[in-house]
């Protein structure tokens, strides 16, 4: 039974990363119509920025949670201004190829300087140790990751679904021309949206640094699963990507307990099933 709970926790943690990353992908896809293949590389950059902040500047984890997403977000906005914005109106394939190329370059550069092995990032003192919950032992840092991710996801959902800024965003997703004709600077909003989506990826990277170490390919490994999550959940929906992210993490964890051989493939099997039954994804809108 202990092992089951442990796998459930691992599933929830992976689910946190899936949710944060697929949430960013969904927001970016909604506004820019771009399938952001660079997302994994930007997640990795988030972890590296946290690493540099600590090792070079002595800036701790808590500040990194704030600073890394901002730095990577700015990097993303520069990418959007200099490259992605020219893809407006073109087929999805162009965006996919361009961002895939960006991912390979970024990963290549980091690999060149840091190799493929991981750099350690210590768990902050305040989150060290664990708690005995009676039915299982909970490492505090892991509990923190799950709760903090959930809070960030819900805050993002609230921002998009319940605020005025979110209404601009949703409206611009539907009809950017008209929203602009109301006097809103839509191109600037698109840039900021890309920055937000990328910032969420970087935040996930910082959260993962103490658990998974900091590696140039940490995002490449993860992003394939995240894309499967996005396909299952559907590109359009914010809440859909959050719920699917956490749910698939848990399903993966449960599979690891009940039938470990399938744990790496279960997400893809589900993806195939969903594609056969509902090609727009569980919560997605028809294109």
């Amino acid at each position, binding site marked *: 039974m202990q092992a089951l709970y442990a796998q459930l926790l691992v599933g929830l943690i992976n689910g946190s990363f899936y949710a944060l990353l697929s949430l960013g992908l969904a927001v970016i896809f909604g506004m820019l119509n771009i399938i952001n293949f660079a997302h994994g590389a930007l997640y990795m950059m988030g972890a590296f920025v946290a690493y540099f902040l600590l090792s070079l500047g002595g800036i701790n984890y808590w500040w990194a949670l704030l600073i890394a997403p901002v730095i990577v977000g700015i990097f993303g906005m520069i990418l959007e201004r200099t490259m992605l914005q020219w893809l407006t109106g073109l087929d999805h394939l162009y965006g996919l190829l361009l961002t895939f190329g960006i991912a390979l370059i970024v990963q290549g550069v980091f690999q060149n300087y840091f190799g493929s092995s991981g750099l350690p990032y210590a768990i902050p003192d305040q989150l060290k140790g664990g708690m005995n919950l009676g039915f299982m032992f909970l490492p505090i840092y892991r509990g923190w990751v799950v709760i903090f991710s959930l809070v960030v996801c819900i805050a993002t959902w609230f921002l998009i679904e319940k605020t005025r800024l979110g209404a601009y965003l949703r*409206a611009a997703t539907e009809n950017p021309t008209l929203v602009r004709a*109301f*006097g809103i600077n839509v191109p600037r909003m698109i840039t900021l949206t890309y920055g937000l989506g990328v910032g969420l990826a970087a935040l996930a990277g910082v959260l993962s640094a103490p658990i998974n170490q900091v590696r140039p390919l940490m995002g490449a490994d993860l992003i394939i699963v995240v894309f499967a999550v996005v396909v299952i959940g559907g590109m359009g929906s914010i809440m859909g990507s959050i719920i699917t992210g956490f749910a698939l993490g848990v399903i993966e964890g449960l599979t690891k307990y009940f039938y470990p051989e399938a744990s790496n493939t279960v997400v893809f099997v589900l993806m195939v099933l969903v594609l056969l039954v509902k090609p727009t994804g569980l919560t997605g809108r028809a294109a």
Partner: protein
Amino acid sequence: MPETAIADAPAKAATGGNILQVRNLEAWYGESHILHGINFDVNAGEVVTLLGRNGAGKTTTLKSIMGIIGKRTGSVKFNNQEIIRATSDKIARMGIAFCPEERGIFSSLDVRENLLLPPVVRPGGLPLEQIFDLFPNLKERLNSQGTKLSGGEQQMLAIARILRTGASFLMLDEPTEGLAPVIIQQIGHTIARLKKEGFTILLVEQNFRFASTVADRYYVVEHGKIIDGFSNAELAANMDKLHTYLGV
């Protein structure tokens, strides 16, 4: 009340100065050349209607003024300021508001969000109470999804949302299209009342009978050019010509 507004209207119309001046406006959709040199003026406080057959270039004229059409040349002056090169968000902030033919109600926004979406660009917009006074239906349906409204309610929402922004120059593209006569009448009353409030309105209409109840002046658009223009008083004398132009 609306009837008196209509009766009052022509007297006030001539008092305003020239607010919009369009000269030799040409526009392209991709490769196709749609507007071939549009020339016309709108005076402050007037309701001016662009008439013409389908595909004549009426909607493209509105969209070119709004800055939505990418390739456009010539001159569009709003309050004596050249806006032909401005982006549509800048044009909107100068005080021009556009209500598109397809209404453009957002399905992922509820009625309240749709109504409050366009930012206030300058002071002088109608307060919400006055908007609900004009469109009482909207007040009852504030929490509905935007596209769940009836066609008439969507049209009212599309007009209502540009009234609170402070824009004084409204461009309405076929506001009566596909609506029941009683709703068309209500929209007519609304336009008359807006005119009385001091709004200047550029209207595109296929429904000539409707246009004649609200407009001060008409321009006829054909093959991307203005081929004729006359005032409401000259309407009766121009009836035969108009029938030929419009093919009705």
